[in-house]
């Protein structure tokens, strides 16, 4: 039997399969055994209670969905008092995603979330549906560095940073996050998108823009993971379009140490467990003893490193 465990900095995940933030809650325990997951990832929490965006919050597109939820939640106090304990009943480490509109508050939130039952802080600096007064740190190197540096100063918990695929130069932003003290990088959040209804000429979502989620996007995110993993030393977690065990393998070959899964769990609520089982079987069939052997194992040495990487970063 293959050893599926992976290490993300100081944290050990029993397998590389985690849910993606916002696409998961402890309530999924109704349908799958949460104790089998690599980690538990809570929905992004903000300081104040928020209702979120106007409905409709989801619209189907050609090959996927766009969604704009608006980070609803009951605020940090309720979260620490009532939601953290819901997750604490399960064994896998709890990764808590957090977001804010300004650097100081972001850092303060991270500090307040650094309670014993929280194992990892995931800084969501990339949500493309933040509200009217919000920003998106992950579009800029300097903003990323600043906010991650501030958070790092306020917490000793492992700090994961979720980057945006909307950034043009993900490599520089990844480097900035690493330098500012990130322990791991989650690549990536959703793609800023728009759908207009041709019957009434109105945007299909209540909030106009939304984030595109689709298995179709995996090759783009995989390219980002590959580019980033080549240059950073900290682990990368690939998030985007994982729907089967081979996708986990593909992300790991590209350099990821683990994956996050959203969409596949909507489509098949038992998908995460199936993917864990299939991944183990895939490794066993090929005599792979440790899943970590796959990390960065893409065979590309004999391919010229052309300037595409540079090109995408702007030459």
């Amino acid at each position: 039997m293959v050893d599926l465990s992976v290490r993300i900095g100081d944290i050990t995940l029993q397998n590389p399969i985690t849910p993606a933030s916002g696409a998961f809650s402890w309530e999924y325990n109704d349908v799958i055994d949460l104790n089998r997951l690599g980690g538990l990832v809570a929905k992004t929490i903000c300081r104040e209670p928020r209702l979120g965006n106007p409905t409709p919050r989801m619209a189907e597109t050609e090959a996927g969905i766009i969604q704009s939820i608006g980070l609803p939640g009951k605020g940090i106090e309720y979260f620490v008092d009532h939601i953290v304990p819901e997750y604490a009943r399960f064994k896998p480490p709890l990764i808590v995603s957090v977001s804010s509109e300004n650097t100081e508050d972001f850092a303060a939130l991270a500090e307040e979330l650094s309670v014993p039952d929280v194992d990892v802080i995931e800084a969501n600096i990339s949500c493309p549906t933040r509200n009217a007064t919000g920003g998106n740190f992950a579009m800029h190197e300097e903003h990323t560095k600043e906010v991650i540096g501030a958070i790092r100063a306020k917490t000793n918990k492992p700090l994961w940073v979720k980057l945006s695929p909307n950034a043009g130069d993900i490599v520089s932003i990844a480097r900035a996050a690493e330098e500012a003290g990130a322990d791991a990088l989650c690549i990536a959040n959703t793609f800023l998108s728009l759908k207009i209804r041709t019957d009434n000429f109105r945007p299909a979502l209540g909030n106009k823009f939304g984030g595109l989620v689709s298995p179709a996007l995996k090759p783009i995110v995989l390219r980002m993971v590959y580019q980033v993993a080549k240059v950073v030393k900290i682990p990368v977690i690939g998030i985007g379009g994982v729907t089967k065990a081979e996708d986990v393998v593909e992300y790991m070959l590209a350099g990821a140490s683990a994956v996050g899964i959203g969409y596949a769990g909507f489509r098949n609520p038992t998908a995460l467990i199936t993917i864990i089982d299939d991944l183990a079987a895939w490794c066993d069939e090929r005599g792979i003893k440790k899943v970590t052997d796959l990390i960065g194992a893409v065979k590309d040495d004999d391919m010229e490193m052309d300037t595409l990487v540079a090109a995408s970063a702007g030459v």
Partner: protein
Amino acid sequence: MSYEPCEKYTDSALRFGDEDHYPERIVGEFLGEVVSNDWVNGEYKHMILKVHARALDSYAGQFFHLLCPSPDGAEVYMRRPMSIYRIDKAASQIEFLYKCEGRGTRGMGMLKEGDDFNLAGPLGKGFTLDPKWKNIVVLGRGVGLATLAPLSQLAAEKGVGITAILSARNPGVVMSKDLFEGFGATTIPVLDTDGTSDVANVEKILNGLIDEGKADAFFTCGSNRLLSLMKKVGKARGVPGQVAMEQIMVCGFGACYVCMRTFEIDGEKTLKRVCRDGPVFNMQEAVGW
């Protein structure tokens, strides 16, 4: 040149008779086998599925989340929520009544006897029957009737009397009359064609039923107009009520916060998740849509 496993998604749903490795889970992913899938009239179809035993453990007002096949070759990405129309434990069958209109329901409509159909559930909080209630009134329109049908089944099992007001455009589409009557319900069809479905007339009927002592509780589904009416009458006359709501869904488990509806509780507006806090809600708190 073929080098990759072609299955795009993993799928380990349970079929009828499969061993259940997670019997303690209250929700499951199932592969139902289509027993029949016939037209009820020009717009609605009725599907009967043979399902795994765990899927039968569901009750009125709950729903399943259906992975519809494609009607046109391109994938249907999101599941479709559908109320349980009838549960037949003896036959290991579950039934849906649905309107064939968009891509998902049209794809569903193409399924034939023997085909597999992936469903996740049962999900949500369904109807509750207070043991004190001796007679209830259900008022539904369109597919809303599909949601109210198993409530009548439940009420009938508990010996509660039912009056079902079935609203429709014309007599041709008064569905479920037989089903409701099979549960011993008294049915009152009201139609657009002869004006009997007018708010004023339905209001009169409701008040009449209260007067006769036949309305210990109100239940509705499927029409905003009827919800407002029942809410008003219920409030005026002190009849408690429940409403089954609809909203676009993604997860069905309460995780994604896509399926929000507005409710007013003690004068304060709030949002609730239709999939988990409902789909059945206190009628007096529902704001409608």
